[in-house]
């Protein structure tokens, strides 16, 4: 058994990151890329529990100490999170933004999309969040060949996003 002091260190504060759309290809790449012992991941998708369980097992096989919770509600996940990643199809992002608006005030919300970016629209939908848009291009089968264009106003949120993108392994371009 660990002495109390070590036990306390082991339970240190961890950033909680919600990934909405975690069970789809892009969400899965992001989840695997950013998972580590310093983060707590909330993997969220509606009605796709088997795929989330599979992803959790995959992450545990790579990084067994990662702390992961599976959720089916985007509002609940965003409420619990410090940082929110939205990795769903761009046609669903407006709907997600409406659902999480109330619980994402002052939080970093990163919208990943594989299509042309909707620019400042998401920031208008979430006026009190620190919104970052990330446009992804390239073959999803080869992470290293993928490019990310990062767009957002809040410097701290941009920094957090760029660090994440580096961890995932995307090439990135900062479009301030």
């Amino acid at each position: 058994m660990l002495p109390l002091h070590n036990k306390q260190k082991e339970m240190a504060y961890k950033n909680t990151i919600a990934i909405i759309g975690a069970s789809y290809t892009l969400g899965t790449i992001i989840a695997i890329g950013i998972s580590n012992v310093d983060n707590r991941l909330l993997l969220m998708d509606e009605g796709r529990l088997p795929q989330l369980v599979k992803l959790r097992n995959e992450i545990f096989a790579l990084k067994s100490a990662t702390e992961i919770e599976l959720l089916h509600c985007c509002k609940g996940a965003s409420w619990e999170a410090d940082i929110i990643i939205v990795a769903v199809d761009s046609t669903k992002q407006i709907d997600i933004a409406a659902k999480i608006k109330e619980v994402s005030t002052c939080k970093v919300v990163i919208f990943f999309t594989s299509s042309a970016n909707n620019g400042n629209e998401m920031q208008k939908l979430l006026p009190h969040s620190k919104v970052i848009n990330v446009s992804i291009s390239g073959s999803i089968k080869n992470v290293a060949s993928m490019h990310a264009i990062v767009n957002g106003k809040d410097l701290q949120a941009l920094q957090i996003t760029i660090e994440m993108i580096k961890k995932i392994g995307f090439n990135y371009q900062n479009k301030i």
Partner: protein
Amino acid sequence: MFNLFFTHVQEKVLLSTAEQELVKNYFIPKKLRKKQYLLQEGDVCKYLSFVEKGLLRSYNVDDKGLEHMIQFAWEGWWIADTYSFLSGESAAYNIDAIEDAELLMITLPHFEEMTLKVPKMERYFRILFQNNIIAKERRLISSNTYSAEEKYTKLAETQPQLIQRIPQNLIASYLGITPETLSRIRKNITLKK
């Protein structure tokens, strides 16, 4: 989400609907699971947190690994390492959740901006800090003057919810006595009744 918060604020200052809407934009809504940390000793306390739901505690850990309770915070209470929050220095306390919790958290820059834009909130916090100073002075007096049994009796009188809701070992730590002493005191009180 802000129901209890505004009830609490309105007991001290009256905010218009527009002011309430403005105030809401400065707070981070956050859910915390039981045993999850909000702050760890040595980190900077970045948030002043209002408890909408649940129960939290602040405490420090001595060299022997023993925990010493500083404060409990449940619905309607604020919690932070105030010195660390205001000075940006490292926190001397840990804060974690005893029960699943829903919080409204504010950073220092947002706190400053909010109190400038809504001066009634400055008055609210002035009253709050004033009450906090009084409570801390009373606790110091209690700690220096009262016997263990008197401390427990006073606590049971002034904060009965605390006695019902918080595990006995944590109450003992809060009173600065051992769980065995607390158990003996409780037994004595029951016998007297």
